[in-house]
């Protein structure tokens, strides 16, 4: 398969970047999107050019490192899929593919498609934890958890923190990420002790990082590779109201 890539190239944060065209020819339809970039990079290296910098790690859809904006969609157009799990057969032969970094003030660009998502770490550090004695593994059913609660907590916990929600949000808001990280704990008995302070502190950290304000467009849920529901955003709002009244 042959493609024309238009890739955001920017050597350093201070530089003014631009979209640069590359030809990606002779690509197997079975290649993943990142493998396609690897091939293009090898050819760039052979020509003595700087390869395209992009983030990746597991390449099996679980680590949350990959994820650029491809043709206007974070992680590309296939729903519920990370960029590393998207295959080139999903793009028609001869098409042009525009690849841009996740864009948000809170995600400063490092190089090309690589952005700094440590703002997410700050949100987690502010309240995305529980204080328990981490001894040996507890008994399975020592603390009863309603099935519905356990399942909803697991749904929230599916978040891999890739940042696609922020990238797709017209407001560059981090509400889906923050709410998932808050709800995965707040829905369970073990997460009740810090429930109020968690809502206050995580929201505070989110604001301090410079994210935008949620206006319920729902684009985050639609691009999320784990299809996390915006129901968790309402959950966060509820916890935030309760914590503010105390």
């Amino acid at each position, binding site marked *: 398969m042959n493609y024309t890539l238009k890739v955001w190239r920017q050597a350093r944060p201070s530089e003014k970047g631009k979209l640069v065209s590359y030809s990606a020819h002779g690509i197997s339809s079975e290649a993943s999107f990142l493998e396609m970039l690897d091939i293009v990079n090898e050819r760039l290296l052979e020509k003595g050019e700087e390869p395209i910098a992009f983030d990746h790690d597991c390449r099996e859809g679980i680590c949350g490192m990959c994820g650029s904006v491809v043709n206007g969609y974070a992680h590309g157009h296939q729903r519920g899929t990370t960029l590393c799990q998207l295959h080139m057969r999903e793009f028609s032969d001869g098409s042009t593919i525009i690849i841009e970094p996740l864009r948000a003030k809170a995600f400063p660009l490092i190089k090309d498609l690589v952005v700094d998502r440590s703002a997410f770490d700050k949100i987690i550090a502010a309240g995305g934890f529980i204080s328990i004695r981490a001894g040996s593994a507890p008994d399975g059913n020592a603390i009863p958890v309603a099935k519905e609660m356990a399942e909803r907590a697991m749904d929230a916990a599916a978040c891999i923190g890739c940042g696609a929600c922020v990238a797709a949000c017209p407001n560059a808001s981090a509400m889906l990420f923050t709410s998932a990280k808050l709800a995965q704990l707040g829905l369970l008995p073990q997460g009740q002790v810090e429930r109020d302070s968690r809502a206050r502190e995580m929201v505070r950290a989110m604001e301090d990082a410079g994210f935008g304000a949620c*206006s*319920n467009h729902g684009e985050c849920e639609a691009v999320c590779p784990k299809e996390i529901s915006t129901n968790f955003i309402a959950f966060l709002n509820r916890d935030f109201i309760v914590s503010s009244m105390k």
Partner: protein
Amino acid sequence: MRFYTTSVGKKIVMAISGFIVFGFVVIHLVGNLQIFFGPETLNRYAEMLQGLGGALWLFRALLLLSIVLHIVAATQVTLQSWQARPKGYAVTRYRTTSYAARTMRWGGPLIALFVVYHILHLTTGGLHPRPAGFISQAGGTINVYNNVVYGFQIWWTSALYIIAILALCLHLYHGVSSMMQSVGLNHPRWNQWRRFAAVFFSLFVAAAGVSIPLAVLLGLVQPV
């Protein structure tokens, strides 16, 4: 006020203030539909409202406060969001957001301008080419019915009302479901009702609001 310093807090203020103004709009329109029952009914209703005296002013104060809070918070969250993405994308594709959701920031100011015009037009009666027969409140006897009919007989006045009501309909279509989400009223089991409420109330506002100027323009409602 750490609550209000966050965008989450501001959105909650917007939701509650928006709900108050929304509640007023719905009741106001239900009241106004009495024009179809004839001049006596509408004028009696208007006199009843005027007779509320202090309570009326209390209510107006609450409404004004809500509108101010709503606009201030909306402006602040909008600026925050604009600052949150200094560099945009070359290509942007949307999957689920609606036209209504994307035009909240244009519809809002449009509605605010309309509210000012509306008060000057039908409440105080100033700053408007007054058609023959129009009586301002200062004039003593209240004939709200005739004022509305004479007012809407000017085609561009009716056109302005219809445009504003359609903008309001869009604003509320997103606003009603959004405000429930903002205060945490969301549950997978009731979400279809949320969507229903948004469609129902925004369509009601559009139908009720457009019906009055349209009926006058079509000559279905005549002055007495």
